């Protein structure tokens, strides 16, 4: 059984992976080309820039904002965003009185088509355990994000196949920026809900 193996050195993990690949290829169920293509897709193509484009458009175009909040899956498809782990995407908007935060306490569910693959902290026990029980304290102490007591916090635990993205508030002083100029302000962390837009991550 798989459980017989101790957590391994790099060599052991590489060996176990190679063994699986080798057998699956031999059985005609896998090709290295397909493996490399999937890796490349998530290392290079599918990432937070997708979500940033959608949010920038929502900030710039009120009709698109309504469409995104009403049916994000369809609105995202219209601008070429969608795919695996995006069967149904729901966009939740931050405001001065409501702050949204996304987590998957049970594993690591994350809106791949809009944000790519999740950062390691999102998948690790500290975040997954704290986000649902003490989000306000966690955001303040671990993410330098202070939310006043007058701000309602909504934590979305992605336990089914619906995937969530946060539409952060548009930073003040950006009224004259074009949609393209707004894109870099929409950070990955702001779309998870652990940061405001306009930061560096």
């Amino acid at each position, binding site marked *: 059984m798989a459980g017989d193996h101790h957590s391994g050195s790099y060599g052991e993990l590489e060996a176990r*992976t190679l063994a699986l690949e080798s057998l699956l290829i031999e059985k005609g169920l896998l090709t290295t080309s397909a493996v490399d293509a999937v890796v490349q897709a998530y290392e290079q193509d599918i990432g937070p820039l997708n979500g940033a484009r959608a949010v920038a458009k929502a900030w710039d175009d009120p009709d698109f904002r309504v469409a995104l909040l009403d049916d994000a899956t369809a609105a995202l498809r219209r601008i070429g965003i969608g795919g695996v782990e995006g069967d149904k995407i729901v966009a939740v908007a931050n405001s001065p009185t409501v702050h949204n935060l996304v987590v998957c306490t049970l594993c690591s569910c994350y809106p791949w088509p809009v944000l790519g693959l999740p950062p390691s902290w999102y998948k690790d026990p500290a975040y997954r355990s704290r986000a649902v029980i003490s989000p306000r304290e966690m955001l303040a102490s671990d993410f330098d994000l202070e939310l006043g007591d007058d701000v309602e916090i909504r934590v979305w*635990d992605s336990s089914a196949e619906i995937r969530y993205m946060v539409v952060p508030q548009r930073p003040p002083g950006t009224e004259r920026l074009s949609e393209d100029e707004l894109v870099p302000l929409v950070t990955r962390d702001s779309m998870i809900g652990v940061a405001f837009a306009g930061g560096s991550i």
Partner: protein
Amino acid sequence: MNGAHDLGGAHGFGPVSRTEPGTPFEQAWEGRVFALLVIATGQGLTTASENRHAVERMGNVAYLTTTYYEHWLSAAETVLVDNGVIRPDELEHRRQEARTGRLIVPRSGIDPHDPLTAQMSEGIRGEATARRGGPRGRFRVGDRVWTRNQHPAGHTRLPRYARGKEAVVHAAHGSWIFPDAEAAGRGDVAKPVYTVRFAAQELWGEDADSGTFVYLDVWEPYLRASRDASNSDDGESDGR
């Protein structure tokens, strides 16, 4: 199952560590494990629920002391053997060979003419697969509901922190493959899914923040119309 993976509300894991590698895969094998399990799932050799359940079954100590992609590697080995794709003896034999350094798997880049490559490239950007049609569910937006106090030994997506609690239905999403059944090999069972909203004080007690709410996505068999309702009172079969 009440495994170590069910982390919501746990204490003792320390602060969130923000340091992260610059790439999704720190080691090359991690990307290859990720890809092979995504491909195997896309090919129908396994399902998302079986993959998750395999991670949950790797043992609580192992789960907490191994890395994320080690979870994926363990799950891949488990599901491929469980589903008869690979035999345990051939897997062990091939591992031994790999450990000696004598196993070579030639790689020649990405070939767009390879059918599996083309299929996957399109598949990861393609349409939904888990959503199913079907009759409207029992509950409506705004309904007060109770989550069941259930502790199945198998796979479920109702976390411990949210069992036997009162919530309000926030949204209805139509029917989706039911994970408790899919993990047991019955991916044909679909149930209505709802987003339900819990007050933090309902989950964590009166000391909790009154201005915090937790939204959770649940399948209809996880819900009851009232706290004391039983299966027969609801006239509803769980389809397990």
